[in-house]
């Protein structure tokens, strides 16, 4: 993948990745930082592949989200495995980002906030699949490629994920 190809790829996926990460972490600033890391690692891998003529990534998009997923895991491993408290999430609904001059303001209505909190509480795998399927509108096949599972398994997991989320919201 050369610079132009990466540029296009970046444009296609930056929002999806940011969205995915934002719904899995506490603040938009954290989402920005993690998103930066994800693309940095992806671009690094592409650069190595080109210079060293190593094995080519067959599914760049799946690879990108695998990196994103791993970054989230690392983030929580470093901080805490427990999700943030509800009060804290409520306070940062209207967040302020101090990333140089970039201020990210995300407004969520009450229901969206409730769902976001619930997503942080359920099984991470369930939350991932829900976000990919219904927020990023990725097909089951793509999700299967990210998780390296069969498509049929993804349908089953997705069903269980939705049940879990519904239960959490009750």
């Amino acid at each position, binding site marked *: 993948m050369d610079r132009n190809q990466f540029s296009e790829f970046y444009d296609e996926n930056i929002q999806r990745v940011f969205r995915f990460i934002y719904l899995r972490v506490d603040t938009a600033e954290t989402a920005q930082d993690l998103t930066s890391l994800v693309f940095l690692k992806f671009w690094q891998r592409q650069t190595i592949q080109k210079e060293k003529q190593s094995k080519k990534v067959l599914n760049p998009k799946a690879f990108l989200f695998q990196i994103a997923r791993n970054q989230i895991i690392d983030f929580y491993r470093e901080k805490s495995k427990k999700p943030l408290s509800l009060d804290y999430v409520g306070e940062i609904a209207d967040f302020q980002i101090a990333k*140089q001059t970039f201020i990210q303001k*995300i407004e969520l209505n009450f229901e969206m906030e409730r769902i976001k909190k619930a997503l942080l509480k359920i099984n991470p795998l369930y939350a991932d699949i829900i976000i990919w399927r219904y927020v990023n509108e990725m097909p089951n096949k793509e999700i299967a490629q990210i998780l390296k599972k069969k498509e049929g398994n993804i349908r089953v997991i997705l069903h269980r994920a939705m049940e879990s989320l519904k239960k959490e919201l009750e």
Partner: protein
Amino acid sequence: MNEKNLIEQLKEFKTIKPNNDWVNWLKANLLEIKFNNILERPKVRLVSFSFIKHRNFIPVLLGLFAIVSFSFAQVSLPGNILYPIKTLTQDTRIYLSSDQAKPMVRLEIAKSRMEDLSKIQNHEKEIKEMVKTINKDLELVPQEIKKINKKQVALDVSKNIQEKSKDLQGMADRIVLEENDKQELTKTVENTQSQVLALIIETTDEINQCPSFLSNNLIEISGYFADTDMKILMNQWSMSEVIKAKALLSEASESFKAGDCLTAMEKIESINQLLSILSLDVQVETSTSENLDEGSSIIPLTEESIEEKNY
């Protein structure tokens, strides 16, 4: 909330978008990054035989072959294809030994060859040849002892060889030989042992028999101190030097009488160094009777002569 409503709510999250400026900033920075120290997994390569083409491969291979052959040769026995390498190695060891070490090395190798012969029974031709070599080695041992210049060293070597050769006869008995060959080998062993013993006796006598030049020197020095006036002596040396020299001369004389030639020589050399007298140049190996003065005798110093000079 039913699933349909939930899904619709989830889709509303699509409105979440990152800050556009931040997106552009990140993209620009990513494209400008130059990755250094890129980490990667080490590549596993299949075994390559390209080293065969290296110019040093054959010399190294030959060297390795030589080392391996040499190693195996050292444990080979007569009749084995590698045994000539072993004998060549042994002969080389003898050749490279110093004069002092040569007799002992040769004896050890002769014993090693006898040991090898005792382990085989067939190969009559090889055994015959090797017995000849052993006989020659044993005959050379006493001759090489005689070549050692220093008598004391020669004496020590002879004694060591005498000790090490005690089991020669037993080793000769273990070799399966024809009767004639066995008798010849036994005879050689006995001759060698006899000659070494004779050398020990002869060398010991030579060492104990102080050379005549030593007695001459003692006479000269004694005569000098006896005949020279004290005043003249004191002009040349200090009192302490003269006293010390006379004491050393007395000790040398006593050692000579006791047959301790080495001590006598040391004392005389000390006098020489003390008074810077011309070196007596004592050489044990060159004892001739040319300088012998039949009428000479050592003039012993008396205690009186020492005391009267002592002030």
